[in-house]
């Protein structure tokens, strides 16, 4: 027993002597190490999944194309997203742009309306009691269920799609804004009271900034839902747009194109989320976590 206790004690001095000697010369490898530790795992996972996909989709009875076939089929689509042959025969960039424009309009409207209504029900108990139950029911209606109704009301594809985005993304913005307003600390209200900050200035200088982290949480959820809704809505309404591109590719049995489009949809959705987080971080001056 004694021997086993003594061994690590004897080993220790050797380690402590070796370390300071290493410190002054950071090799290229040690400097790149932190980056490698971040970049390598996702790269390896993607490679592994790609290989798995290749193996699974290469068999005789496979219904989906393997990555190699996707690359061969959709080479032009992947390499050049900017071509425009007129009509619906455009590069993915143009389809994404059309979808993003719809999201921009619909989401802007829902941000304005959502924050306004959220401020109202966050402030007024009466408004909350009246509106909250209705919102709780409406927000569970799936985006596409609104589409027939909005087509009937607007009789045109474009405003209908924008309405679907609006009605999908407005609920989390309303609810988070209301929670944010209700959670403004009493301390800040006291400060405002002592310096007699009232009316619009009170809202602008105290309530909105204090609720901003919550509001941006709502906006972030909202922009994600908008992107989900627009893809689905475009499949049904047609025209230029990434949703319809996917539907069109399905109708012409062009599975490789669909897979490429899915990658783009995912990446754009991710970028929208990060963008919203970044805006939130800048606007709240770091009080909201990005």
């Amino acid at each position, binding site marked *: 027993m004694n021997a086993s206790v003594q061994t690590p004690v004897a080993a220790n001095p050797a380690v402590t002597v070796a370390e300071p000697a290493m410190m002054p010369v950071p090799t290229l490898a040690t400097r790149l190490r932190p980056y490698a530790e971040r970049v390598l795992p996702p790269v390896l996972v993607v490679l592994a999944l790609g290989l798995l996909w290749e193996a699974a989709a290469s068999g005789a009875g496979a219904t989906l194309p393997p990555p190699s076939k996707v690359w061969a089929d959709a080479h032009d689509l992947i390499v050049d997203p900017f071509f425009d042959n007129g009509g619906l025969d455009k590069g993915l960039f143009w389809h994404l742009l059309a979808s993003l424009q719809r999201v921009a309009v619909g989401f802007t409207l829902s941000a304005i309306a959502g924050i306004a209504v959220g401020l109202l029900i966050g402030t007024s108990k009466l408004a909350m009691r009246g509106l909250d139950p209705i919102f709780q029911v409406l927000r569970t209606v799936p985006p596409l269920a609104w589409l027939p109704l909005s087509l009937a009301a607007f009789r045109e594809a474009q405003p209908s799609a924008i309405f679907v985005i609006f009605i999908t993304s407005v609920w989390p913005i309303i609810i988070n804004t209301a929670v944010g307003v209700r959670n403004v600390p009493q*301390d800040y209200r*006291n*400060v405002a*009271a*002592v*310096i*007699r900050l009232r009316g619009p*200035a009170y809202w602008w200088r105290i309530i909105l900034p204090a609720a901003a982290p919550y509001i941006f949480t709502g906006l972030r959820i909202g922009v994600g839902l908008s992107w989900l809704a627009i893809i689905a809505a475009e499949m049904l309404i047609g025209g230029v747009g990434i949703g319809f591109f996917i539907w069109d590719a399905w109708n012409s049995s062009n599975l490789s194109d669909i897979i490429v489009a899915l990658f783009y949809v995912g990446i754009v959705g991710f970028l929208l989320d990060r963008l919203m987080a970044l805006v939130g971080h800048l606007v709240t001056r*770091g009080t909201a976590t990005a």
Partner: protein
Amino acid sequence: MSGNQAFLDISDVTVAFGRSRVPVLNGIDLKIRRGEYISVIGHSGCGKSTLLNVVAGLLDASGGGVVLDGREISGPGPDRAVVFQNHSLLPWLTCYENVRLAVDQTLSKTMSKAERHEWTLENIALVRMTHAKDKRPGEISGGMKQRIGIARALSMKPKVLLLDEPFGALDALTRAHLQDQVMQIHADLGSTVMMITHDVDEAVLLSDRIVMLTNGPNARIGEILEVDLPRPRDRLALVADPRFIAARAAVLEFLHHRHTAPGLAAA
């Protein structure tokens, strides 16, 4: 107005919450002279902060009233600036902007924009925070936040400064440092101060009079002690001063002998 007349006159203030029959504070009568430094001391839950909130106008008294400089107060206002216990700085504004907001809000009628800028800087300099004026509250220590809180309160040119356990959340060394600063500011500006505290040494060191509240609910003023120590006061010299020791003993005797903490008495 003569010097003897009450500058801040708290008369028969009673506060009861909701439908509770027993009031938190019962018939508080207190007259404070201009330039006087008053401490209100008592055990936790005795309603000291409630009293301060009534004077600040953040809380309505159920009975009685408060007259400041010949005018009955109604609602909060910058003439009774509060330094809150937890500093209450707005985290999205820098230190400068926190003070500037109060200055803009309370002095825009009497000062030009340039004057307000200068006045803001002057008050930040008064609490020796010029070096950190562009930092946000999240980036500075608790003591620094409290100093900015004091600068913000002073910048409103209040008639009376209300301090709600301003140093309660600070470590002992920082607290001593801030107490010295507040003493200096009080000496320089001649402010009228009402401070809530539960620290006996702090009360004796800073105050002209110490108001001792009995245990709540139904708290009233148990005793008022005149602290007859010449100013400026030096904390090191006072440690051995018999008048300091006597005052300290009187407050301790009130708090721990005659009005033991309710929780401790039960235990």
